[in-house]
């Protein structure tokens, strides 16, 4: 079981869990400087996961500066006024701390899995680099080269990754999600140290961050430590976040077909822009349940109708709803009959409509139950728990008033799902993308 796959489903479980009074022990509070802190106890082993979410990602980059959020993430490991260039990594290593960071469209996250005896060291190092980063010219140039290499390795070497990026570019055109997270090769090279420092000054402040501590520590102790290390950090300037605009008229249908060398299979992908959980909670949860029924659960509707009848080799759906911008409803298909792609596309669309027609209140209740059943695993892995709580808190959802959300989910009705899906089919911007092998001889 890929537990992270269930992460977003976990969120809804979480909500159910309040209703069922089984909620794992956690506490949430805010320091005077605005840093949000969430603590979750897990006493299995004497270890803890510490995650620091900054509410900034690729979506906050200015036009022409793609890759800046990610480059800054790299620079955060290159020393502060108190910790010299490589001693950050040395200290982490010597203390057996499993540490890393990642950047997404929405967030930049620094995380560490550590023995409890080293929690304070991790907190001290995180607090220090929230305030005292220095960017040395040489280190800047080296990291710029490294992220360039990283982009080549992850994206440029791999035709499918390039294809997905091209598709996203069309789907998110003229919105803040347009930037590839790793940046384009051209733009990475034009980023400057000044850009990075300005980004750091603007976004790396206590009131734009969420600290999560999950593991073998009492909530009261974690509270004292958060206060001790982060309490004195001042916000750099009156923090004014630029509200990123997603245009209201995201509509229209786009189809892209692409042939690439080194591609050996045909793949069809379809994406719709949909309301996120922040835009419209009712719709978001309706879509979450629909996707689970349509193409996520073990024996989903799409599996039954397309795989079992030997019309496709693989088919699935999935949703991104716990995001700062707009949500996305995704479908992917590996067709069996490789002749007429428009037939395959139509088959996928028709099956989705048919799934909606065949959805009954009983099936919907069953789907809620399936989603609910996974609740129990939230207690197992402190890392999963930290990730989940970090996203909820970073979205600004009030985790101390979960009951309100529980009601929203439990109240999802058949007609909510019908409305949400019909709305998506009628009005959402949609991109269909077909990737096919390129025949090396005939195409010359």
């Amino acid at each position, binding site marked *: 079981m890929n537990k992270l796959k269930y992460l977003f489903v976990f969120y809804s479980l979480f909500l159910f869990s309040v209703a069922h009074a089984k909620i794992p022990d956690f506490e949430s509070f805010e320091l005077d400087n605005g840093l949000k802190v969430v603590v979750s106890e897990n006493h299995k082993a004497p270890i803890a996961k510490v995650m620091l979410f900054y509410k900034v990602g690729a979506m906050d980059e200015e036009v022409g500066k793609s890759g800046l959020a990610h480059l800054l993430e790299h620079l955060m490991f290159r020393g502060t006024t108190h910790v010299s260039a490589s001693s950050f990594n040395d200290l982490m290593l010597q203390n057996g701390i499993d540490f890393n960071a990642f950047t997404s469209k929405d967030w930049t996250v620094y995380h560490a899995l550590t023995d409890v005896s080293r929690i304070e*060291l991790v907190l001290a190092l995180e607090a220090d680099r929230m305030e005292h980063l220095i960017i040395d010219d040489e280190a800047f140039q080296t990291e710029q080269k490294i992220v360039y290499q990283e982009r080549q390795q992850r994206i440029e070497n791999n035709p499918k990754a390039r294809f997905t990026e091209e598709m996203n570019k069309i789907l998110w055109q003229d919105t803040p999600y347009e930037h590839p997270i790793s940046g384009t090769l051209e733009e990475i090279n034009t980023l400057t140290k000044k850009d990075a420092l300005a980004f750091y000054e603007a976004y790396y402040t206590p009131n734009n961050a969420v600290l999560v501590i999950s593991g073998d520590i009492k909530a009261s102790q974690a509270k004292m430590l958060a206060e001790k290390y982060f309490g004195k950090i001042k916000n750099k300037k009156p923090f004014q976040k630029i509200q990123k605009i997603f245009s209201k008229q995201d509509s229209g249908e786009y189809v892209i077909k692409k042939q690439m060398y*080194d591609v050996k299979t045909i793949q069809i992908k379809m994406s719709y822009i949909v309301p996120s959980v922040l835009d419209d909670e009712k719709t978001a949860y309706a879509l979450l349940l629909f996707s689970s029924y349509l193409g996520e659960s073990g024996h989903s509707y799409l599996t039954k109708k397309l795989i079992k009848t030997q019309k496709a080799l693989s088919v699935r759906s999935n949703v991104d709803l716990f995001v700062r911008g707009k949500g996305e409803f995704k479908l992917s298909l590996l067709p069996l009959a490789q002749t007429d792609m428009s037939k395959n596309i139509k088959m996928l669309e028709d099956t989705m409509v048919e799934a909606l027609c065949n959805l009954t209140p009983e099936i919907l209740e069953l789907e809620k139950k399936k989603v609910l059943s996974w609740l129990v695993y939230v207690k197992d892995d402190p890392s999963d728990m930290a990730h989940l709580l970090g996203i909820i808190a970073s979205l600004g959802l009030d985790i101390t008033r979960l009951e309100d959300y529980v009601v929203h989910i439990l109240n999802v009705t058949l007609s909510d799902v019908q409305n949400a899906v019909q709305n998506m089919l009628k009005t959402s911007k949609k991109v269909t993308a077909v990737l096919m092998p390129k025949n090396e001889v005939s195409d010359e």
Partner: protein
Amino acid sequence: MNKRNILLILNIFFITLFGYAIFVLFFRQDMFDAQKILKNSMLQEKTFQPQIEEIISQKGIKAWLMQEQSAPIVALNFYFDKAGYAFEKEDKQGVAVLLSNMLEHGAGKFNEEEYHNILDLNAIAIDFSVTDNVFKVSAITPNANLNKTAELLKSVLTAPHLNQKDIQTSKLQQIELLKMKEEKPERVLSKIFREKFYSNHPNARESLGNVESISKLSRKDLKDFIAEHFTKDQLVVAIAGDISKEDATAFLSYIFDGLIEKRNVENLPELNVNYVFDEENIERDIPQVISTFVAPGTERLTKDFYPLYIANEIFGGSGLNSRLNKVAREREGLTYGVYTYLKTSKKAASIRGGFSTSKENYAQMKMILLEEWQKMANEGVTEQEFEAIKDHMLTSFNLRFRSLSDIAKQLLYMQQEHLGMDFLQKRNEYIKKVTLDEVNEAAKKYFSNKPSILTIGNN
């Protein structure tokens, strides 16, 4: 000394003092004192002594059990030894992977839909996977659903439906997966590497099989594979979680007691791997060169293991802090990362590694690798590096107990590698006992062999 001289000296003195004051006030920040933070930490190291015991089913099947009550969950991991893809008959390649997929299509009294509904409604997950040597199953369940899990697993192992139509679809999927592997340059590189390293030995095989062999696989082949490999004598089991010894024993008996006792599985031909070959490149139109390399290593239970492990961590195993990354990544910016690791497989023990870099960087990158490699052989490691890695290995010990599936995996690994039931108690002692001299001897012994390199994209 005249007055003017005294004044001059005083002036210098005051200017110096003033300068120092300015320095203290404005420039000298409080340096980060990690030792002080650790010493004064609210939470200190805890002795964490997880207890493992052996349980035995009515019919004599043994399992390692770790009871862990922090969550109402049980993880069960097991494998059949000598049941991986290397043990398939020459013309049946791909049958193990095909079976691992076919086991999810209904078994016993459950059709496919019922099987998946029971899993989803009860938060039970059952995964099948295949390596070169073993056929592996990992399951996790809330302890309230143990009986359902046991029933599903028993059905899967003894009465999978294996419907013709599903077999046909699964075969087509497997062929598609085979094609997808060819889309990824790293996969192509690793396939050709295995062919060079293992030559004709079955370990060189592609786990999915090949188009020809997959196309010919039949229902009977799947049944034969089960009959030959799902036997008690090859079974290794680990259980972790909130379960009593009695329940764990009953669980074990219910699932496995009905299995066939034993079958004779032929041993693989003697391995005779090629550690030494000339550098070779696979042509491919990609912006980077991806490289993989190999040199002889040591097996898990040899006296060289821990010394070489430490040497390798310092060299290329410890991520951003390794020597290779400090030079090639942190200093030169040539690569997103370079890594090395030890492979401890019998008769094929090796130091393995790899990196990706732009074509124009490749020559420099390779030079750094070879220079650092030579430096390990000639000079070994410093005392400071040695102590840092030891501290790292000791303080990261507990991280392996993050989730119950991690714990079950660990228990299975300990059995697979014959580390002994008291390994978790002894492990940190093993590390502490290693001396700097031993590490440097191992570095000299193993890094004196030059690595053999294979690349893709270096056109």
